């Protein structure tokens, strides 16, 4: 039904490579789910945009054909493309909040599709809308139709997007990372929904993702994309089990396993940090009146981390895991409870009393692009801490070079600016910066979540190696059960600001006791597939 033949898209002059997509060929049959997998910058989204006729003006399809039921989309006029969109092909996007217009009610946005492409009367259109909204398994369709996007949850918004895309029963649905921005339990529901609707309507789906768990969950066939080239295209089971191309093999090998790695941990080691009854409540009081109810971000969190061990905190967005990390790093002040760092309670210490203790706890953040000041070289970033604590510039620079070597970067790159590094390299710089003042506790707050899977594997390995070599305690915050399985010794599961379950990782993974932990495991994509 969709037949992409030798598609070539050129990038503007001066880009890092000449072609965004090189001679890509793949097909989608009716009722088939084809997954397009690749790392960031591999050209996945460009292919989707080319099919929809939505390529940015700077990109130009310079060769090949995209046949949608025999009609070449690349040759179609803008008017014809408008006719095709929604009726024959539809697209859903990664971020449903930005894909929906915030000032229109959800129903009005679906209605726009119907009004443009059909000659139905308003009452018929309303009936269609209610019907499709019920179809995407939203309860209380009338209320959903009358809501604005911001009043719905992320999962509900994505369902509205799907309803909008499918209301005219298109033959082809392009899903561009539709679940990446969602929590794992919501993701499982949306994946199931797409799968069901696809079967019912025998829609062909081109599903773009970077997550092999998702691929294992839903794909019939898989295309692996590398730097704009389709390196391997074949049936999902076969490709996942026996990848032929080196790159596909490397990608699949880099997917972390859900089975925890076993490691002997000494329970006699000294406790570095312990919290007791830690709580953080965001109060929304204004100058004159309250602006809303208080938001408890963390409630009664008690945990302890020993030297040489990694404690994982897993949970979905809004579960309070980052709040706990930021309290322990004292970037925010907890509202109650104690944080004991080597016998001193740092929960309520003032700024000046805290300064000598700050160097004991360091944190690495999620976003490698925002974690480094764009106006300072990486050398300056790394030596800032040591110089704050009295090191001379020469000493600090020499130490920084050694640290760059430790995180496997070229020490000669010390005078370069962050934008000259890739995401994974920047994250290594951040790790070097955190290590520069020799902390006892390293907090990794979703430190590998923004990285591609192959880079992620390398950074995880690096973190583990450093923890072992420097005998650090590590607090590892993540939403990804697979990642946690690879680095953590013990794990705490958080929901709504509370720790609902904690214990050695092998025990928790083998035999989850709390209902929520079980739900998390049930929702983990590709859990039946062992990578």
């Amino acid at each position, binding site marked *: 039904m969709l037949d992409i033949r030798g598609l070539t898209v050129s990038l503007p002059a001066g880009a890092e490579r000449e072609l965004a997509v090189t001679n890509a060929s793949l097909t989608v049959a009716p009722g088939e789910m084809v997954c397009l997998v690749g790392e960031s910058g591999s050209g996945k989204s460009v292919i989707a945009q080319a099919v929809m006729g939505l390529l940015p003006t700077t990109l130009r399809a310079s060769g090949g054909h995209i046949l949608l039921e025999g009609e070449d989309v690349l040759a179609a006029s803008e008017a014809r493309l408008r006719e095709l969109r929604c009726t024959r092909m539809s697209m859903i996007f990664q971020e449903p909040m930005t894909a929906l217009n915030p000032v229109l009610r959800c129903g009005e946005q679906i209605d726009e599709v119907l009004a443009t492409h059909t000659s139905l009367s308003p009452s018929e259109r309303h009936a269609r809308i209610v019907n499709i909204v019920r179809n995407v398994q939203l309860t209380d369709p009338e209320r959903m139709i009358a809501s604005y996007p911001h009043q719905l949850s992320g999962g509900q918004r994505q369902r509205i997007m799907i309803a909008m895309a499918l209301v005219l029963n298109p033959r082809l649905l392009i899903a561009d990372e539709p679940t990446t921005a969602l929590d794992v339990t919501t993701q499982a529901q949306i994946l199931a929904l797409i799968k069901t609707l696809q079967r019912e309507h025998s829609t062909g789906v081109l599903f773009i993702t970077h997550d092999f768990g998702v691929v294992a969950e839903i794909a019939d066939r898989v295309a692996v994309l590398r730097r704009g080239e389709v390196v391997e295209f074949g049936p999902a089971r076969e490709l996942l089990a026996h990848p032929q191309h080196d790159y596909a093999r490397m990608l699949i090998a880099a997917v972390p396993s859900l089975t925890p790695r076993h490691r002997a941990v000494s329970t006699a080691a000294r406790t570095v940090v312990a919290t007791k009854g830690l709580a953080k409540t965001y109060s929304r009081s204004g100058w004159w009146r309250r602006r809303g109810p208080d938001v408890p971000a963390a409630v009664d969190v008690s945990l302890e981390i020993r030297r040489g061990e990694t404690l994982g905190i897993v949970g979905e967005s809004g579960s309070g895991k980052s709040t706990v990390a930021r309290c322990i790093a004292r970037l925010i002040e907890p509202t109650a409870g104690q944080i004991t760092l080597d016998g001193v309670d740092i929960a309520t210490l003032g700024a000046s009393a805290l*300064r000598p203790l700050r160097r004991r706890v360091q*944190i690495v953040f999620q976003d490698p692009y925002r974690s480094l000041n*764009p106006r300072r070289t990486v050398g300056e970033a790394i030596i800032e801490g040591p110089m704050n*604590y009295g090191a001379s510039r020469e000493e600090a620079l020499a130490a920084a070079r050694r640290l760059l070597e430790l995180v496997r970067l070229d020490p000669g790159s010390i005078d370069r*600016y962050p934008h000259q590094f890739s995401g994974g390299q920047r994250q290594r710089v951040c790790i070097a910066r955190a290590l520069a003042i020799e902390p006892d506790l390293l907090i990794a707050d979703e430190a590998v979540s923004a990285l591609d899977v192959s880079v992620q594997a390398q950074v995880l390995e690096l973190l583990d190696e450093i923890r072992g070599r420097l005998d650090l305690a590590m607090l590892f915050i993540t939403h990804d059960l697979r990642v946690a399985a690879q680095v953590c010794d013990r794990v705490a599961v958080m929901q709504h600001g509370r720790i609902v379950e904690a214990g050695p990782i092998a025990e928790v993974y083998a035999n989850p006791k709390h209902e929520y932990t079980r739900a998390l495991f049930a929702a983990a994509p590709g859990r039946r597939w062992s990578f």
Partner: protein
Amino acid sequence: MVFGVVILALVGAMALSAPWLTSFDPAAINPGFRNKTSGAVEMVRADDGTRAEVRHWMGTDSLGRDIGARVIYGARASLVVGVSVAVLAVAIGLAIGLAAGYLRWLDGIVMRVMDGLMAIPAILLAIALVSLSSAGLVAVIVAIVVPEVPRVVRLVRSVVLSVREEPYVEAAISVGTPTLPLLLRHVLPNTLPPLIVQATYICAFAILIEAILSFLGVGIPPEIPTWGNIMAEGRTLFRVYPHNVFYPGIFLALTVLAVNLLGDGMHDTLDPRMRKRI
């Protein structure tokens, strides 16, 4: 940017070397030779009885003063006002804005004061400030700086509020950087790009405000020529003798353009991300 620097350098040099560029006294009134168009030739009899021809390249105004000389000397006052207002407003605004944006307890108080200042029309406030003291260059500069400061404060504060949430600022806090170096090292440099654009705008605006104040008679006294008061002067006879407004206008437009080009250029060179692409 090169063009901007060259123009500004030329205008600056012109202002500095004014006495050598023209033989006319910009304030000398010549009732017998008023409202002459560009290139008018006047016969002057010197004390010893010899006659000489002098040419008024840009003509004369309604009091017979040489416009060329006035424009050249006027560059002094206009440049001084523009540059010093921009520098002072940005410096004061930056300091207040950084403090207000970073120290949350100060924010409410400072911003309410700034809102109060902004509620008063800028020109009115300037007139009030000038009339409190004697009219003069310093009074005019102060009068233009005061209403500009809240605008800078608002801009700086909004940038600080977003920069302070950046992970690299938090990382700097956690490696123990004290507040003042933190502000200077990590927050301040990131507020500069929008500020430079704002500063060039203020500079141009200050030259215009000065002209308005002069026109209203509360600015720099008319015996000191500025581009503003030359134009204000010529405004009444604009339809008959447009050169009176035209020449200072050209200089004003060129200078403002040059300042803006310079600002854009600095914006790009200060950003290491832009440097790579060149």
